[in-house]
């Protein structure tokens, strides 16, 4: 236990160091081996931890050491393992291992593979630290670490300027959220005098009454951090552009793990959020809005990965909705199943992209189902789970739980948003699958598609296919001890809701099949004229947030900067630098190199000293 727990992040960290210091000596195969094995060993350690935890299911921790001790401020390198962190740990190392393995096939023959694996391993280490840290300072360290790795990996193909800008965008937008989070942490420390998570959860209800303005403010700031990291409205604009990175990166960081960190943060600090009911409701509303906005946007994308990116936002919106209605268990459960089926979808997309010679435009693909049977299976199973087809898929069980929590807590409007979102999910999923695999190939790249071969390509996909079916829902996260009991309600209502949700999903599939298979030409016609075209453009650009921010924030800011270039404040700030410069020039005159001046200065110093001493008596 004391050894196993730190190993889960030390092993990937060791992988990073080996890769970083190998200096390209390892070659492609060697780098892939180191990268995969280090995460594999971490996954093994996690498996042993799971075994131990299930034998004795109670929260436990390891304090490695106290970093520095100054009265109340005693940040420790302490790790904590409870049901929540164990679930996250399992997702990170388990799904992470599959994605690392798949990447060995995906990245084959590309340059910079050592760099790729070094950053991927560093990401896993940071993410594990984020979920295991028993205090918010360590969590923040991991939080920043995953942000850094995300930046580095989005810009993996840095020779293209656009990728660099996408990395910038992701970094800067999430940084806005991070600033909120940091201020939130300062507030927590000021008010509660601790950053230890267990102590915060214990002291918060003692200090604050529910609805206290201070706790509302703190929760709001924390929510700001979560929104940035999890790409929720209004800080969501970076995620679609983040698809510039290699597809395994999108699968691991921008679908399965890092973007869910916000959900983890809120779930982890649920005690604080429960004291701030307004902010909690806001969380749910933002989740509902995001899931709808992103769902519409996903309908009008032409790039496979962008469809999946908006779908990720939408699914995380579901998780936020669940958090907002107090269904923490449901949120984490959906987080887990989502990580399975979204990783599957991204990896299948990666398989399609590589097989079709890096073609990712849906309109230029098509008719691939016979050529790429495994990728097709992946898309169908993953898509079914995403659309939450009843009974056979993992997504059904978790999404149903979220909707049920919304109903049982009496949030009818959120429930409606969730149901509408389910319809949209079915539609865009079907559009994606039909676009890629059915109809006629739209380009030579699609006609010359070659199916991937080998264990590294096949096995991760097969495992994820299995996990995306109802088998994945059999993993029940051991969260009973962690969260307050979920909302209860009549069994009859629950059954009715299940039937209704299934009906919506199936209706969406049916509608989609009719629209995309039978009325494709009509649909294209509508989307290219008048109102239809406008709507298409609006959704294609995801409601125009980018352009809006550009006009509302970026340009005014730049104008302001231009305007303030020579203002008083700047002059004062510049004065400090100039003062330092003048003082430097003045002092540098004393450094003449002449011995007699040096000796004279010493005599003057000694005389002054004696003078002061004489004055003293």
């Amino acid at each position, binding site marked *: 236990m004391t050894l196993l727990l730190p190993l889960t992040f030390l092993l990937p960290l060791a992988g990073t160091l080996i890769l970083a210091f190998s200096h390209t000596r390892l070659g492609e195969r060697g780098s892939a081996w180191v990268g995969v094995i280090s995460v594999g060993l971490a996954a093994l350690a996690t498996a042993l931890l799971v075994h131990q935890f299930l034998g004795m299911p109670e929260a436990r921790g390891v304090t490695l050491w106290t*970093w*520095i001790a100054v009265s109340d401020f005693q940040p420790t390198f302490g790790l904590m393992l409870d049901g929540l962190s164990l679930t996250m740990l399992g997702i990170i190392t388990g799904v992470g291992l599959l994605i690392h393995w798949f990447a060995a096939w995906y990245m084959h023959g590309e340059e910079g593979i050592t760099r790729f694996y070094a950053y991927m391993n560093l990401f896993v280490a940071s993410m594990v630290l984020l979920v295991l840290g028993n205090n918010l300072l360590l969590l923040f360290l991991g939080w920043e670490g995953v942000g850094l790795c995300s930046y580095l990996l989005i810009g993996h193909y840095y020779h293209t300027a656009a990728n660099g800008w996408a990395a910038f965008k992701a970094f800067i937008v999430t940084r806005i959220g991070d600033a909120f989070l940091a201020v939130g942490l300062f507030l927590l420390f000021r008010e509660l005098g601790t950053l230890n998570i267990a102590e915060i959860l214990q002291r918060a209800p003692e200090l604050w009454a529910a609805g206290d303005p201070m706790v509302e403010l703190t929760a709001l700031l924390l929510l700001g951090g979560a929104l940035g990291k999890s790409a929720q409205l209004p800080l969501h604009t970076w995620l679609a552009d983040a698809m510039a990175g290699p597809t395994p990166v999108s699968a691991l960081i921008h679908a399965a793990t890092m973007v869910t960190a916000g959900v983890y943060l809120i779930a982890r600090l649920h005690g604080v959020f429960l004291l701030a009911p307004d902010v909690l409701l806001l969380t749910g509303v933002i989740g509902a809005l995001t899931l709808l906005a992103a769902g519409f946007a996903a309908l009008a994308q032409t790039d496979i990965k962008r469809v999946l990116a908006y779908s990720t936002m939408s699914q995380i919106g579901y998780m936020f909705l669940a958090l907002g209605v107090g269904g923490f268990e449901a949120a984490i459960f959906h987080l887990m199943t989502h990580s399975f089926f979204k990783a599957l979808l991204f990896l299948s997309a990666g398989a399609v992209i590589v097989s079709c010679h890096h073609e990712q435009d849906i309109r230029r693909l098509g008719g691939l189902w016979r050529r790429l049977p495994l990728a097709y299976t992946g898309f169908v199973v993953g898509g079914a789970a995403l659309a939450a087809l009843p009974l056979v898929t993992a997504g059904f069980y978790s999404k149903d739980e979220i909707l049920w929590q919304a109903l049982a807590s009496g949030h009818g409007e959120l429930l409606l948003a969730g149901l509408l979102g389910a319809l949209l999910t079915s539609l865009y999923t079907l559009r994606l699958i039909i676009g890629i695999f059915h109809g006629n190939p739209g380009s030579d790249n699609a006609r010359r598609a070659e199916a991937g071969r080998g264990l590294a390509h096949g096995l991760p996909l097969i495992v994820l296919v299995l996990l995306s079916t109802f088998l994945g829902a059999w993993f029940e996260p051991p969260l009973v001890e962690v969260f307050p009991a979920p909302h209860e309600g009549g069994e009859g209502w629950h059954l009715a809701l299940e039937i209704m949700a299934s009906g919506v999903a199936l209706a969406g599939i049916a509608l989609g099949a009719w629209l995309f298979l039978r009325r494709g030409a009509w649909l294209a016609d509508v989307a290219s004229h008048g109102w239809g075209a406008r709507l298409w453009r609006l959704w294609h650009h995801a409601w125009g947030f980018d352009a809006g921010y550009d006009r509302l924030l970026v340009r005014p800011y730049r104008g302001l900067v231009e305007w303030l270039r020579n203002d008083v404040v700047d002059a004062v700030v510049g004065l400090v630098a100039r003062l330092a410069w003048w*003082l430097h020039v003045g*002092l540098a005159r004393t450094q003449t190199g002449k011995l007699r001046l040096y*000796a004279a200065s010493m005599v003057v*110093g*000694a005389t002054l*000293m004696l003078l002061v001493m004489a004055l*003293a008596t």
Partner: protein
Amino acid sequence: MTLTMTHLMALLPLIVVCATAITVMLGIAWRRHHGGTAAVTVIGIVLTLAMLLPIWTMAPVEVPLLVVDGLALFAGAMILISSLTCAALAYVYLDNYPGPREEFYLLLLCAAAGGMVLAASRHLATLFVGLELLSMPLYGMLAYAFSERRSLEAGIKYFILSAAATAFLLFGMALLYAQVGRLDLPAVAAVLGERPTAWGLAGIGLLLVGLGFKLSIVPFHLWTPDVYEGAPGPAATFLASASKVAVFVVLLRLVLSTPAFQDDWLRGVLAVLALAGMLVGNLLALVQSNLKRLLGYSSIAHFGYLLVALVVGDGLATETSGVYLLTYLVTTLGAFGVVTLLSSSYSGEDTAALHHYRGLFWRRPYLTAVLTVSLLSLAGIPFTAGFIGKFYIIALGVEAERWWLVGGIIVGSAIGLYYYLRVMVTLYLVEPGMRRRDAPRDWGGRAGGVVVLGLALLVVMLGVYPAPMIEWVRLVEHITVR
């Protein structure tokens, strides 16, 4: 008072270092051999270091004129580690040196012995002897590459100014003797009492001038950049590390054992000196384009920070000084180690101009990493050793409510960050096409390279996991004679 077996045991490290020096001298007389001499030196120093452990358990031991207590052992260990690093670096550096190479180790050992005496002195006579035994060999080391104009200049400058400073020191001692009639520190402290007379204060003031010169405290700092720049790499390393540590420790002992230092005026003087050091040192380094000079200015600033501990003079002062000295030592050794390795093997002037370092990362990534870590630590960035030291100093200043000093530390650190970053940026710029002098290809496998890598690792380790260091320093405080 007769010498007992315990006394002999306590003095054994000193004796072994001296014996090693004599062995080296005889060895040179018999047959010159660079590798052999270096090996004897290293073995002697390692043996001494190992010997410190058993003596640790019996400390404190009071020997006539000397006291072997926590502070003395702590300083001894730091001096020996610096000497070991210098020996390892010198072995690479002097590889190609045309003149005699073996004498450098002789000088190094003598200076180390001097430093150890100084740190253990509790009598003004041993203080003087130790200080001179430390300084005399240093003159030789600084001017070791005497065919180089700058090296010779460094040696002569340091020699003349140091002699002048010693004159002040001796005069201060004479004044104290005139006042007290004795030279051992406990007696001096007792007679001076809390409110010393004018002569006593003048004596202490002149003592401060003499020691302040060695620590390059403003306004006795002017020699520092010139000497750092001209001195051969290993000699500069020793001057910046062991010599300063030994002198600071003896100053700390003076402050701790003499209640007269708690006098408000003296504290005020120390505070002014500290503030001047932080600001002047950092400002002078602002656009410096020679790395060795820059490190010299930076050391002025760092001893300005350290003086804060002496201004406060009680409570956490010893712990703070210990932690700061240790982190500063490790960092400085790392930084100077890189400079020395880049100047190896000897071929005239050292590689210290900043443009030599442009794009170093693309040629020598590991060496650049070591230098980067060292510079980050000097700037006091978290997760490096320097942060812990600076944190202690600031915490001490805040606790004593010395707001001016805290302000000075903050302003100084801000200025410092600018010039440390300037150097770091240079390291990673695109490499110019010209060929330059460089570290030997196999530097990592050589003794000096291994030591430097180890130091960088230590800098990071102390920053991430400082607990053992802090424990150790607390233990040192515990067995220190007041």
